[in-house]
């Protein structure tokens, strides 16, 4: 496992593709670009999650029930969510950005920060670096919904570039906040560059909504007559702190451009993946839980996991008819205990089960924390140590058999659907060494 040190950069380029999942669908099915499209929610398929501009024009809004949306827009094309595909596309985008800079920090689906410190020696001016980012990301094929529907923009204190038909907006500035606000000001395919020293002036003109505010704080600030970041920054810092506490200090400093949050590159150990293909699609929750448990055990045995505890676990499923399902959990306390890894996936499976029968199930450990709680040397109970010893001996014997016969002839019998009326569906064999 590679232990990449943290890479940081104060200079940031925020790359943002709004409605990323919906754009993934239109990239996959270009005929959707001219239709009113809505995407059903990955957690609740009865509600609309994302809405294309044409559908929004017809009155469809995110969060509506599907029946309300179709009532408002009978021509609405509703797409089932395919989170695995969106995830794969976002990974492509991150990989493309990774060709520009080694410091990449994903923020959410469709938004990532690129560390820009030191890139001028490679690519030249900020404009040239942004151009490189846009050219690399253009290979991912994320296009705008209504191509050519906007006019070139006149910039004021910051310059702008434009890549026709691209959906990517780039914001350049010092720190993540300035670059994010700049990206929200950019039009599709364009970039807004905030030159060093101009941060205060740029932020001062931005609306209050640019800050990460809860609705109550937003309402209170508006009641105080604060409409822009400049108006907030003009207030004495201590006065804001006395009204809004520690959160207020952070908001004031963001508004005044006093905080520079660096881009932190990902620690990227190789993910550990375990997969299972069912011989017939499976819809039963109990069986899926059993399969998840089996895959977690298998992934935990991977030698690359040694010395690391699992922090992020992800389960994804390929469903019948090409759809997919994805569940991800970040553990507050990284663990190597299968029950603790399984529990959040079981909860998600219960809360938002796959929309169809599962053909293939994959468990991935994608982030790790150093350290391990499993030192056999200090095993508390001798029986557990003896069991571990027997398992090791059995594994060694199985490996020897495999070496001699060139194939594995040892299997576990596992319950698949013991309640099935079809005898061949009840039990199955799986390789002993998996």
């Amino acid at each position, binding site marked *: 496992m590679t232990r990449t040190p943290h890479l940081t950069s104060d200079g940031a380029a925020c790359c943002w593709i709004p409605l990323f999942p919906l754009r993934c669908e239109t990239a996959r099915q270009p005929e959707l670009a001219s239709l009113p499209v809505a995407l059903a929610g990955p957690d609740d398929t009865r509600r609309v999650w994302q809405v294309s501009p044409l559908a929004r024009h017809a009155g469809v809004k995110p969060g509506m029930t599907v029946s309300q949306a179709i009532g408002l827009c009978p021509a609405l094309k509703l797409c089932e969510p395919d989170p695995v595909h969106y995830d794969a596309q976002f990974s492509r985008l991150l990989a493309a950005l990774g060709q520009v800079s080694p410091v990449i920090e994903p923020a959410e689906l469709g938004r990532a920060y690129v560390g820009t410190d030191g890139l001028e020696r490679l690519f030249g001016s900020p404009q040239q670096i942004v151009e490189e980012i846009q050219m690399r990301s253009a290979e991912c094929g994320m296009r705008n919904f209504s191509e050519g529907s906007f006019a070139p923009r006149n910039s004021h204190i910051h310059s702008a570039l434009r890549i026709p038909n691209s959906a990517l907006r780039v914001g350049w500035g010092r720190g993540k906040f300035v670059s994010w606000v700049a990206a929200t000001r950019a039009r599709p395919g364009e970039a807004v560059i905030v030159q060093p020293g101009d941060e205060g002036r740029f932020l001062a003109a931005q609306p209050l909504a640019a800050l990460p505010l809860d609705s109550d704080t937003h309402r209170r600030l508006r009641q105080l007559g604060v409409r822009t970041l400049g108006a907030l920054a003009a207030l004495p810092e201590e006065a804001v702190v006395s009204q809004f506490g520690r959160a207020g200090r952070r908001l004031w400093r963001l508004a005044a451009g006093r905080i520079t949050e660096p881009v932190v590159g990902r620690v990227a150990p190789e993910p550990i993946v*375990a*997969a*299972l*293909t*069912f*011989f017939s*699609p499976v819809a039963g929750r109990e069986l899926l839980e059993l399969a998840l448990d089996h895959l977690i055990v298998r992934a935990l045995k991977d030698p690359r996991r040694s010395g690391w505890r699992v922090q992020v676990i992800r389960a994804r499923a390929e469903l*019948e008819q090409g759809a997919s399902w994805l569940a991800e959990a970040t553990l507050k306390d990284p663990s190597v205990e299968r029950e603790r890894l399984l529990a959040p996936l079981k909860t998600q499976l219960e809360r938002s089960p796959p929309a169809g*029968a599962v053909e293939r199930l994959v468990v991935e450990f994608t982030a790790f924390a150093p350290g391990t709680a499993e030192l056999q040397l200090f095993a508390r109970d001798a029986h557990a140590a003896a069991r571990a010893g027997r398992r090791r001996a059995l594994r060694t014997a199985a490996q020897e058999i495999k070496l001699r016969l060139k194939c*594995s002839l040892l*299997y576990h*019998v*596992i319950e*698949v659907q013991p309640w099935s*009326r*079809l*005898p*061949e*569906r*009840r*039990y*199955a*064999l*799986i*390789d002993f*060494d*998996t």
Partner: protein
Amino acid sequence: MRNGSDRLRALNVQQQVIVELDARGTPTIVKRETGNEKRIESIGETWRIDDEWWRVPIVRRYLEVIVEGGGRMVLFEDLKTGEWFAQKPT
């Protein structure tokens, strides 16, 4: 079912057999693919399974039979294709 470390192998998969029927449609002889042929002495329980109607429907007529020599077998007829299969009794 394909082989591979990430694949499950189903247990008790049905084996195709050839079944000869008498004039009333009652099985009389069962032949395995190996050529092994056995006369059916008696038929015990029969039952029917209708399953997976939501996907590719499975419709089977099962018969528990005693073959010559006293062996017990479970046969079923796939009512969609008319093919016969043997499966281990469970």
